[in-house]
């Protein structure tokens, strides 16, 4: 080791994506045999930084030094060979194959020579036994990965990382779907690895967990590093403060909406899915923007998609204008004048190969039927009016929507729902992946809708957006509602405290 102190140094890393500077001169240094926590709000750049370290993204500027040597990573294979392993947030495995095959996938030991190579099952089994013994794991290597519990699948991933003789193991939100007991088992494994001299970079939102497991904590904010602190010197309040401590600039349009009477009341809503939201109650007023805050995994999307009838509900009541309603499917939701802008614009929002016009009219086709046939002319009138009103930048209404920028695609989806004349709009991360200029336009549309008496529920993981746009802010943590704050008196610290209440 060059200076004998750090196993890994990331010096002055910058990474630019079209429209955003995702990482701006970030420096993180990790000592061998320590657990190094990486903290920050959603979108602070933690995952991007780790993807740079794991060779998934290339680095625009800056230097990665591993074991005293400067390295440039072309792909993850190279990172693995150099001793950097990553355990992903979503587990990447082949579900219908055995633990054994998943463990050694891409590097099966072989016997034979020349073109006559066969997988050496005996050696694979022996290596696996040795590895599992070392980690004190007791999973039967012949079982299918699909049949394992989440924590077992995760320990397989860890075993895989260890089997690469990793010097650095990145763990991205490893406990997000584990029970308390499983977490303590994971921590045992982590401590054992640490004692063997492995450095672990640990990404989590859970403050208590971070303080319990880590030796050092690096905090990031808005793509920059705030600093690295010994865990012993930190408290949850200090971490929150350093994670959010930024000034709010004037990035939001003025609002003049006045919330009126209650239009929708949700009572004791509980999901039928395992580990999702439970017992959530809130109400929504006419002309109100209700922000929904929380960390990744707070089950906000699940809650709102269940209200819209896309996911099964175990118990709970929805009243719309005082009348109890069973929604159950999006067709019924639409009839009750609800609208939903989903979180994953590309996966569940746009129909890529269809035109701007077709995407705009899909939720409202019946309106354009004359004598049993669709009138292209009536449709075009509405489409063109929407394009003008929302200032969608598109060569024409006939352009396939995939050719538009993210912000303009989002405007088309807004137009789609506005044409159904909804009373309640549910917006799930409406500005995700949209550049700053288009964001302001989206905010203006939202503010204008509220002004016109529409009620809006807006999930957002961006603090400034929540604070800048909401009349009230509902905060969720681990599937439960932890509080509703008044928009005018809410602060980032208050939201963060509620969002981490059960952690």
């Amino acid at each position, binding site marked *: 080791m060059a200076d004998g102190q750090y196993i890994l140094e990331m010096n002055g890393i910058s990474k630019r994506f079209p429209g955003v500077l995702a990482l701006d001169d970030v420096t993180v240094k990790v000592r061998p045999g320590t657990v190094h926590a990486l903290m920050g709000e959603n979108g602070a750049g933690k995952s991007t930084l780790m993807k740079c370290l794991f060779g998934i993204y290339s680095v625009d500027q800056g230097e990665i030094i591993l074991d005293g040597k400067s390295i440039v990573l072309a792909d993850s294979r190279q990172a693995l060979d150099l001793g950097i392993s990553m355990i992903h947030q979503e587990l990447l495995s082949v579900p219908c194959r055995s633990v054994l095959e998943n463990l050694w996938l891409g590097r099966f030991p072989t016997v034979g020579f020349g073109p006559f190579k066969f997988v050496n099952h005996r050696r694979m089994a022996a290596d696996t036994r040795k590895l599992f013994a070392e980690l004190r794991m007791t999973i039967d290597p012949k079982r299918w990965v699909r049949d394992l519990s989440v924590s077992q699948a995760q320990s397989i991933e860890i075993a895989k990382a260890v089997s690469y003789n990793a010097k650095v193991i990145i763990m991205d939100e490893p406990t997000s779907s584990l029970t308390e007991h499983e977490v303590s088992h994971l921590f045992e494994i982590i401590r054992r690895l640490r004692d063997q001299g492995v450095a672990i970079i640990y990404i989590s939102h859970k403050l208590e967990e971070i303080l319990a497991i880590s030796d050092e904590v690096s905090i990031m904010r808005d793509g920059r590093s705030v600093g690295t602190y010994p865990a012993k010197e930190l408290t949850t309040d200090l971490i929150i403060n350093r994670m959010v401590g930024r000034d709010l600039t004037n990035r939001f349009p003025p609002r003049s909406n006045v919330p009126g009477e209650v239009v929708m009341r949700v009572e004791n809503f509980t999901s039928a899915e395992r580990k999702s939201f439970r017992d959530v109650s809130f109400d929504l007023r006419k002309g109100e923007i209700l922000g929904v805050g929380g960390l990744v995994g707070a089950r906000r999307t699940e809650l709102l998609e269940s209200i*819209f009838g896309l996911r099964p509900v175990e118990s709970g009541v929805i009243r719309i204008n005082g009348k109890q309603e069973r929604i159950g499917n*999006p067709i019924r*939701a*639409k009839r009750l004048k609800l609208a939903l802008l*989903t979180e994953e614009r590309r996966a569940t929002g746009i129909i*890529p190969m269809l035109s701007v016009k077709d995407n705009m009219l*899909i939720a409202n*086709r019946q309106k354009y039927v004359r004598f049993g046939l*669709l009138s292209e002319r009536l449709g075009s009138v509405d489409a063109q009016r929407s394009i003008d009103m929302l200032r969608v930048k598109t060569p024409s209404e006939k352009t396939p929507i995939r050719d538009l920028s993210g912000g303009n695609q989002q405007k088309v989806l807004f137009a789609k729902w506005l044409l159904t004349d909804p009373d309640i709009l549910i917006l799930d991360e409406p500005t995700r992946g949209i550049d700053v200029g288009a964001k302001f336009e989206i905010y203006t549309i939202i503010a204008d809708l509220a002004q016109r008496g529409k009620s809006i529920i807006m999930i957002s993981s961006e603090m400034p957006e929540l604070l800048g746009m909401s009349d009230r802010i509902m905060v969720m943590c681990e599937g439960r509602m932890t509080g509703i704050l008044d928009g005018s008196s809410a602060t980032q610290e208050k939201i963060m405290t509620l969002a981490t209440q059960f952690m």
Partner: protein
Amino acid sequence: MSILNRVQDEGNNRSKQLSDFLLKYAIYIVFVLLVAVISFKEPEFLSIENFRNILSMSSTRIIIALGVGGILITGGTDLSAGRQVGLAAVVSASMLQQLDYARRMYPNLQLLPIWVPIVIAMIVCACIGLFNGFVVAILKVPPFIATLGTWLAVYGINSMYFDRPPYGAQPIGGLDQRFTNLGSGYIGRDSVYSIPYIVLIAIAAAIIVWVLYNKTVFGKNLYAIGGNPVAAKVSGVNVTKNLIFIYCFAGLLYGLAGCLEAARTGGATNNYGNMYELDAIAACVVGGVSTSGGIGTVPGMLIGVLIFSVINYGLTFIGMSPYLQLVVKGAIILAAVAIDIRKYLTKK
């Protein structure tokens, strides 16, 4: 920018335009080349009579392709199409044999109005389509497997119907003249300058289907479901209902095609329609319908079928071995799709 650079840029632009053009019209270029080669070898190929023959040969295939095409647009597929055609042919033929024909399947059956058996055959196929739709949309079985199942079952059912007393399994012949006339008759003075009825029926079917796919809520929903089923569902489209309907509607078309096939050839056996589904899928794909859904037009389906008919007819006309013809057709399918996919790959 230096002049040299600019010249280079313009050159790049022009070559890009050219390659875009080639990509867009590749299949037509291949088509024109084929026709050119065929007519060079056999100048008589370019005649009205051949043109008319190609059209009537294409008619039933067009009707089948229109049905399969709609299903492909939703991202599905239908392997049972050909067997449904066969079933419709047998059912309609069995009820339309001449009164004085010796081996009637139903010896005591009265003379029926010609439309009755046709409607019955179409309804039978619509029910099979309904079943396909149920298995795909409600049981969520992948369309390939679902229709593989009906493909086998329908052939079995057809064979049971076909192979029974008093005469057992033998071709159904002696068809009513009104019926055969529908398959081989024409409007016009003589057999050259005229339009066959089946061509008129295929044109009518194409117009109706074009209207259905382009001018109705149902049609627009087909494209949306094929393009992004989740987005369609979130937008309040009844995906289940629309899927069931398209399989059912395709069944109606196969039923019609089967009747015309029996009328055209003057008979039917349980092997009628064998492999027609693959011809229809190939024609759609060559005509630009995407097997992953969301893309496809009625004119494209028509052109796809016509291309195959021209190849079939033309290559036979110049005396090419039927085996070699298969190789040429296979190559055309692969080339068409490989080129078509380039269009979308370059856009990403």
